[in-house]
């Protein structure tokens, strides 16, 4: 039984993105491809930032498209390359932004765990304008997970981070995946990053999925010359 069942058709200037994705609850998919292959378009259509031209997207019993479900009704967490923290709020208020008043009390223990694991406690009451880039990334990650969403989308979230911070955040994501059981789609153009926390790979080229399977099967027999070059580089 799929949690996410998506067929996304979206016309771009160079090509049409036409992608079908099916993920079971708790599955972790790495969407891999060269820059400009259509990965972010797929993510943005799933999140609801962009509306597909055609297709169908459902998350469990919830229809996301068509018609396009408003963003605030989608139980989806979306982390992009930029942190987009709310600059007028503290670290604490950013992390708890998605929790409504009633939920805040019930989530206190969970939020405390998030803050401790991501080393945010000493920053907790600071304005986000006073923290570093790496700390901002942790806050964005904590804010995304605070609502304990069933579907998590992350689009090249480690692009600007050093290797140590990247590994640390990947380890944290893996722990919370075990604890929360969310379904994850991650996008990156570096397979070695995706391989660390995604069990399944889907390779996208010019808006089409050209290969799907385990990382070892994709690496052993790349379906296209471009994919072979990307894996070799």
């Amino acid at each position, binding site marked *: 039984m799929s949690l996410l069942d998506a067929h996304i058709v979206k016309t771009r200037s160079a090509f049409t993105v036409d992608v079908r994705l099916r993920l079971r609850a708790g599955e972790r998919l790495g969407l891999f491809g060269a820059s400009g292959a259509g990965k972010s378009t797929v993510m943005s259509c799933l999140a609801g930032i962009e509306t597909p031209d055609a297709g169908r997207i459902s998350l469990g019993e919830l229809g996301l498209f068509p018609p396009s479900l408003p963003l*605030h009704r989608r139980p989806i*967490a*979306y982390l992009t390359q930029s942190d*987009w923290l*709310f*600059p007028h709020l503290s670290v604490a208020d950013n992390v708890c*932004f998605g929790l409504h008043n009633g939920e805040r009390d019930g989530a206190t223990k969970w939020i405390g765990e998030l803050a401790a694991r991501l080393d945010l406690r000493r920053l907790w009451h600071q304005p986000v304008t006073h923290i570093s880039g790496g700390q901002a990334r942790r806050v964005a990650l904590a804010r995304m997970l605070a*609502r304990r969403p069933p579907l998590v989308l992350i689009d090249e979230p480690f692009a600007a981070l050093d290797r140590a911070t990247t590994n640390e955040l990947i380890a944290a994501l893996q722990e919370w995946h075990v604890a929360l059981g969310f379904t994850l789609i991650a996008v990156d153009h570096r397979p070695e990053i995706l391989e660390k926390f995604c069990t399944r790979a889907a390779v996208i080229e010019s808006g089409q999925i050209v290969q799907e399977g385990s990382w070892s099967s994709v690496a052993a027999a790349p379906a296209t010359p471009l994919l072979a070059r990307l894996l070799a580089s």
Partner: protein
Amino acid sequence: MLAFVLVLLYPLLGLSARVGPWQWNGAIPGSTSSAVWNSLFFTAIALVIDVLLGTPVALYLARSGTRDRIVWEAAVLVSVLMPPLALGILLSLAFGPATALGAWLLRIGVPTSNSSVAFAATQVYVSIGYYILAARAALAAVPPELERIAALLGSSPLQVFRRVTFPLAKLGLAAALSIAWVRALGEFGAVVVTAYYPSGMPVQIWVNLQDAGMPAVMPLLVVFLLTALPLPWLIHLLAQKRNVTA
């Protein structure tokens, strides 16, 4: 720079000019006090209307595509660029009792000439364009990505405005409001045509000048400056302070 500022502020010395003993009233006792009250009260009403009508329009303009924005802003700009006297005459003609709309409004008890409604409506017409254009700039400075993230975190459009857009744009919105305040409070050309009665401060200053000369102008002029200038001046200082601390 100092020389320029001195030249710029030189007219303020006019307040110390020897014009004879100042007198609060002109020819009609009580008219100056009621002009102050009329100006403050109706300008406040006009600003409430500016905010209620203008903010959604400004938000729409701030978030619309380039082509849409150019077209609609050009329309809003007409009201900003209109010479006040021309606007007053046009308002009188368009809402006057000779038109179907004016006649109907008069029938339901809303006189559109020389009335409180005419006064406040004229102030709205002269100020709302300024408010919208300045508010649009303030709202456009809030990255739409922040609003999208807030929505994805479960906030409805109204909550997004209350929790993200407004706090980030509030100083710019206050500046927009202060521009509208000065514009509405200081309006003479349009108001003198549509609402000679009830007189506001600008019209009363002119009436006092005609009836009693400069001594009857000076006290009201001081009140006029004290009610018009501090709000935008303070907001400008606050904005500068925020720019320095940001």
